């Protein structure tokens, strides 16, 4: 696929207009690449056909690993590594292990998810993603489509038809 270097974008001031706009554009065969919004718009992912995130699964796996690590580490310490008679309690003091097991599960799950999120979204300290338009973090909802020289007017028209307030072309 040819790399896209130029984009044409439609601006909205209201999320409902955005949703209906995108739907209209899609009906009119405008290939909507992405949308930049100041807050999460309900239904946007469905409209754009974004799959449900895998993050929950990552969290589940992280949590499971955390829980198992926590539990078996404690078990190892008490029954193998450092066998001590502590208050006459059994070496395999399972009720005592639950709190730490739980905490490590949560800790692992949270960290694995956040790292997965950052990694998957290419976010991170000092990450330099291209900021399409600073207005999109304020009050504008921006729909972006690939710019193709020959089709631009058509797309523009369709965007206008889809109720966009501003239409711009950017690198």
């Amino acid at each position, binding site marked *: 696929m040819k790399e896209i270097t130029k984009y044409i974008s439609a601006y909205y001031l209201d999320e409902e207009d955005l949703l209906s706009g995108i739907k209209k554009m899609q009906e009119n065969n405008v290939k909507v690449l992405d949308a930049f919004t100041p807050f999460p718009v309900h239904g946007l992912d469905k409209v754009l056909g974004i799959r449900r995130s895998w993050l929950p699964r990552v969290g589940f796996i992280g949590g499971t690993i955390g829980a198992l690590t926590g539990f078996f580490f404690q078990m190892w310490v008490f029954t193998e590594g450092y066998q001590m*008679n502590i*208050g*006459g309690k*059994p070496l395999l003091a399972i009720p005592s292990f639950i709190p730490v097991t739980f905490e490590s599960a949560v800790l692992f799950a949270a960290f694995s998810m956040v790292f997965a999120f950052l990694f998957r979204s290419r976010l991170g300290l000092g990450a330099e993603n291209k900021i399409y338009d600073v207005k999109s973090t304020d009050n504008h909802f921006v729909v972006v489509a690939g710019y193709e020289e020959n089709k631009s007017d058509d797309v523009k028209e369709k965007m206008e038809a889809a109720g966009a307030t501003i239409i711009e072309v950017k690198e």
Partner: protein
Amino acid sequence: MEKKYYKSIEEYQPIDGSPNNYKNLAKNHIGIDEPVSGSPSSRRDFLKLFGFAIASAAVVSSCEQPVRKAIPYLIKPDAITPGKASYFASTFFDGNDYSSILVKVRDGRPIKIEGNKLSSVTKGGSSARVQASVLSLYDTARYKNPAISGVEAEWEKADAEIIENLKAIKQSNGKIVIVTPTIISPSTLSVIEKFIEEYPATKHIQYDAISANAISLANQSVFGKEVIPSYQFHKAKVIVGFGADFLGTWLMPVEFTKQYSKGRKVGHNKKEMSYHAHFEAGMSLTGSNADKRIVTKNSQQKIVIANLYNEIAKQLGENTIEIPASPVDVHDVAQRLLAHKGESLVVCGSNDKESQVIVNGINYLLGNYGSTLDINSPLNLKKGNDSEMETLTKELNKGEVSGLILYGVNPAYNYQNAKGFLNGLKKADLTVSIPSLKDETAEECKYLCPDHYVLETWNDYEIKPGNYSLSQPAIRPIFNTRAGQETLLKWAGVETEYVELIKSNWKKNIYPSSGFSGSFRDFWNTSLHNGVFEKAVGGNLEINYSKSAIPSGIETESSEGLELELVESVAVGDGRQANNPWLQELPDPTTKVTWDNYASISVRLAEEMGITEGDIISIDKQLSLPVLIQPGQEHKTISVALGYGRTNAGAVAEGVGGNAYPLVQHNRQTRIYSKTGVKVEKVEGEHEFAKTQSHHSMEGRPLIRETTLSEYIEDPASGNEFHEKVKHHATTLYEKRKFEGHHWGMAVDLNSCTGCNACVVACSAENNVPVVGKEQVKLAREMHWMRIDRYYSDDIENPEVVRQPVMCQHCDNAPCENVCPVGATTNSSEGVNQMAYNRCIGTRYCNNNCPYKVRRFNFMDYTQSDAIPLNTYDPAGMTVDLKRMVLNPDVVIRSKGVIEKCSLCIQRIQEKKLDAKLENRQLEDGEIVPACAQTCPADAIVFGDLNNKDSKISKFFADERNYHLLEELHTLPSVGYLTKVRNTEAKATKKKEIKH
């Protein structure tokens, strides 16, 4: 200072046993001269034994020298194995307390005193003061050198001047007086005799700060013998005391406690115990242990005694004494005494001769002489004649005494007319003091010739006829001191070493009649090894009773107004060892106050006078003391402990409490320790006591369980029903751990324990328990691993008192262990709850969760072992190098921020286990004895292996009386308690609680 390095082994090696080499070695490498205290050759054996490791201690005496703590042994001295303790039999006697002891010496340092089981007198027991005495050895306040007019001098110079003076006095026919405390050493007496031989115009006066002169005077008039009888409390089925605190302070508390507790013990084979009634005004240790305590004014004591006499005399058809009726009922006591003729005992602590005479009469009528008390085998204690001291004071003031030698006495502090005495002292030409501890008198004399401490010196003792004991130096003298006996011998011109004199005395006087089959050398060595030599004397039961000595009538004092009672404190005794931090921090067994004396007043009097605890009162405008409200105190009697208010005894003692000795009276030949018609007023100020216990009620909880004898006979488990109940309901969510091998346990017989506190000091000494000082005790931060809880119940005017020694209970299901985040406290494979101090991070969580509150936290850097500099908190000076000599190297000292607690003396367990292993044998039951159990004069503490079914501890645990503290919590303690049994008819119903 330049460091000196050894160039070769040879340079450092010339130890061939010759004394000079030792001397040189000391000079070269330690940097001091050997103390001049006798010819070197005779010290050789001693030196060989104790070497020079102690030299580090000696160094401290001269501050310029650096302390070197490591002394290498290139040739191991015979008796010293580094890391292994040696025990030397010896005797502790300071004029007041007597105990046959073993001195535990580690690397040349005495670190602990244990009772000597071979003595038939103290039978392995000792008291708090004896236990603490090892610390007094290292008292930094001790006189380090002889002094002339307050300036330190050489012995040679002092000797020369003194001898010159003495000779001058001799020439001018001047009078010389030697004042000593009671001397029970035959050899010391012979030294004094030798001195008198040289200076015939010398008079020897024995002066007891706390006098019992009335007893010997009474015996003189009744039986013609001026002695103090010996007592056999264990033979008495009925014991009646009149203000005699024989379990705490009176005469021979260690011996009496042994005897008393023997008579009090019950068990499967012995379902009887002695009955003890006690008449007293203040709440003493003894009174609080009595089955029946009758509150009596001291001024009326004589009337009560005489009434008792009359009750008995009447029934026996003897003459009675004309007296007013008794303020308290004595009929019941009289009946009991009469029912046990020949096996009862009446003792009286009063120093009033007439009272003692009547008590003698009672004992005589009851046929107790020869059975429970014996004047033919007297106690050689308290030989002081009170009037002699009065006379001496008069003579001194008249200038009739030219030479005064004060040998081990401190009249400037403890003589009631100290001012008069000191005035007179100035008039004498020659004044010499021979003190072993710093005191108020020594520096008033021109010549100060410091004596060895009791642990540094040779001596012999004869506590009872035929009952000899020896003391031997357990350490080379730390300071430039000299045995008093040698000092006197030197002045008398006798060139014998004192030890040789003792030997020759023994050879001459004791050996021939000893029945010993070997040579004298063997005899001597055996005696020295054993510490005691006892031979049967007597069989002489004859007594001459002079009936006429019993008065037909007695004068009665007015018992109006307030009365003062002066008592000896269990902690500091007569005040001699007041500079001993262990004793100062030792809580009084009854009031639980440390670091203080005070005026104990009754609850009623406090209400009447509008006084609350901590207010200050002045007594006869002579002494101002804070008030302590004492349940069981006689309504109008104020009790004050002697032994406090030292002014020149060292930093620890000074400023603690007030001196009550000036309030002592002298009338009718003897010193009287009470006073009537006392004027008391409240003065400005407020005082906060450093108490280790502030709540006095058991709140109806089954902590100390008791029963009465009759109930016990009926059902040995009586009073302990709760134990069965708990056992019945004991459920658990996890199996009880099994202990393979040993499972250590301890049991305390509450019926034997008198609460004397000896174990507390023993524990502190054994385990390096820090002293925290008054301010920290006020904040409830005392560090004692072992404490004795005391509760009152019933009538606040005369409560029942119970005591319970509490140490770590070594729970098998220990709540403390569970919660330590770092696992610093765990259960050992032998059931001991142990602390890893260097693992402890000091969250104090374990202590919070300990239901017994036996864990102690190092709130400050008490031991100067912290990583952070300049933060030591050591008000008692326990971290100075010299006092650190007393530390037990087997027990690590704990730093700031660490929890510590009783370890069941794990170091002792390990030592004995190792011994058994090396000898390839099983441990025997009773082989391991923790410090508290070792010391206990009442044999109340038993230690052993719970896995050994035949051990004593297993039998204790199987006893119906056994229970565990807070057993309903299922902590499964390894410490058990046996119920207390009172010999009273009354059913032990639920006690009324005293809210206080």
